[in-house]
């Protein structure tokens, strides 16, 4: 759906990737590594200095606007609706622009206004709403044309926990029906919940920024953050753990804490050994936060 070939623009240097249909790709990286630039290139808002960008088989710059029902873009600073419209009016106008049949529009609007929970204030002008109420409406508006490809730049900004979850659910559900998504966010928990693949931008040896990773979260963790921490509480005899290939561990009369490298041993293997010896009363596993990659690679 999106194809970059040796693309350079501003801070971005030599970016190449292919984003297959139906995937949800989470784009992460510290501030200033060019996430928004990449999204703008894909949206056809920016032109590459070098290399080639193609979206749905076409040059997005030339086609910007022409096939916008196929590509949806949500980005702070590019308003979807007018401030002096209400949700009901504004989204209605959008539907006309996109030529969505009335009945179909009603169906979609009902569903989305329900999901994003703005029914009770759908008649109020956007400028008379709270920040998050507005963002909910603008997000719903982005989904109205049911684009094949959706580009979301930090969509969760200003949303409360409930709306964040709704957004995740809507994206997941649409992705299952075939929508392709490129999403950036500083909320890495949400990226982890959503993405089928993760892409990381990071400063390279020069003054630019390059792609240091593109793959699933499992592979990412394997490569960058393989050491997890497990705490097991138990009652009964003290287990024997000497044969397990652990990074380190400590044992007391009722608690076992270890760090293990998931490339060499799995948590269920450890647990199976422990449960042979004793009765487990509580288990906790802490995987490192994805944030650490960004903090470290800076």
């Amino acid at each position, binding site marked *: 759906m999106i194809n970059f070939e040796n693309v350079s623009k501003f801070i971005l240097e030599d970016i190449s990737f292919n984003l297959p249909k139906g995937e949800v790709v989470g784009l992460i990286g510290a*501030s200033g590594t060019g996430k928004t630039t990449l999204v703008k290139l894909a949206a056809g808002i920016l032109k590459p200095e070098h290399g080639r960008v193609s979206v749905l088989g076409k040059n997005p710059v030339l086609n910007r606007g022409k096939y916008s029902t196929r590509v949806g873009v949500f980005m702070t600073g590019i308003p979807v609706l007018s401030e002096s419209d209400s949700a009901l009016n504004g989204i209605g106008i959008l539907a006309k622009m996109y030529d969505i049949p009335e009945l179909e529009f009603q169906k979609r609007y009902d569903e989305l206004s329900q999901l994003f929970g703005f029914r009770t204030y759908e008649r109020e002008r956007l400028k008379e709403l709270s920040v998050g109420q507005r963002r909910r409406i603008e997000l719903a508006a982005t989904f109205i044309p049911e684009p094949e490809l959706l580009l979301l730049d930090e969509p969760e900004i200003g949303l409360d926990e409930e709306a964040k*979850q709704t957004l995740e659910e809507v994206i997941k559900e649409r992705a299952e029906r075939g929508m392709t998504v490129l999403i950036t966010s*500083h909320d890495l928990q949400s990226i982890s919940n959503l993405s089928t693949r993760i892409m990381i931008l990071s400063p390279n040896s020069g003054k630019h920024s390059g792609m240091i990773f593109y793959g699933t979260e499992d592979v990412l963790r394997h490569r960058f953050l393989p050491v997890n921490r497990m705490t097991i509480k138990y009652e009964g005899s003290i287990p024997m753990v000497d044969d397990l290939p652990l990074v380190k561990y400590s044992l007391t009369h009722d608690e076992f804490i270890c760090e293990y490298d998931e490339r060499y041993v799995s948590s269920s293997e450890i647990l199976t050994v422990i*449960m042979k010896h004793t009765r487990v009363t509580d*288990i906790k*596993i802490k995987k490192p936060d994805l944030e650490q990659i960004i903090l470290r690679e800076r």
Partner: protein
Amino acid sequence: MSFIEVSNISKTYKISKRKSGVPGMLANLFVPKYENKEAVKNVSFSIEKGEMVGFVGPNGAGKSTTIKMLSGILYPDTGEINVSGLIPYKQRKEYVSRIGVVFGQKSQLQWDLPVIDSFELLKAIYSIPDDVYKKNLDRYMEMLDMDKFIKQPVRQLSLGQRMRADIAAALLHSPEIVFFDEPTIGVDVVGKDAIRNFIKDLNAEDGVTMIFTTHDMQDIEKTCNRLVIISEGSKIYDGTLDGVRKLHGSSRQLDVYFMNDSEVAEIPDVEIVEVDKRHSQFIFDGKKVHINDLMSHLLGTYNVKDINISEPDIESIIRKIYSREKVAG
């Protein structure tokens, strides 16, 4: 009497119901012009000098409205606010020299001017003495790592940089109290870290009273120990973060990844969510279900590749509190 004393404040917005366009004008003749919207209902709290308090709550709960009343931008319809003897919305002139206000959504800096020029402008507006200005500027430059962008026009800054500049701007006159409305909105991990540390340091070193709103529970977790939850205009919680956790303490989520496609059979008292054929989640109360029994059942019945078990994170606890409020209200 506490440093900040808020008693029973309420705020109702009047919103115009007028429709636009010619048919709208006709219709307007027959409908009342305004509709009332209760944004804040009967909220009270007190805050001591040097305290740091975070306000959270669903979208539209009334957090920003509360901050606006506290900072004297809006007046409450009923109730009272008293800040060390001053009434914010009445003694506005005197009050603004003692407070700093940062709105994450809106910059008070000049879009086209370099950051440092905006600072100079504020110095003149607030008549900040040279020595105070210089001392604060030097200090914030370092604490907020601003030298890279201080000479750049604001429009060229990233969101995180702009926010740091805005925070410094609000603090140039050494205010005693600072109000932040979503100071970390749209800021990346590194920038958030910088902002949190700054807020914490200033609170610890200078005893500045800090009041902020946020949707990022990590902001609360990493900075302050008092949290106020607002929902639908009312205060529904005032206490520590640990207190919130304790309300929902013993639930556990167990994620199990299978070697091969597996159909998971029901287990009493355990909620099972099939994520996909090789991954299921088991949610249960640790007081009701014995983890040892559950694990031996699972390890004995299925071909388990990996597991993960976690306490509910603060985000999902907060989510539950919000949705329960809605059901109840």
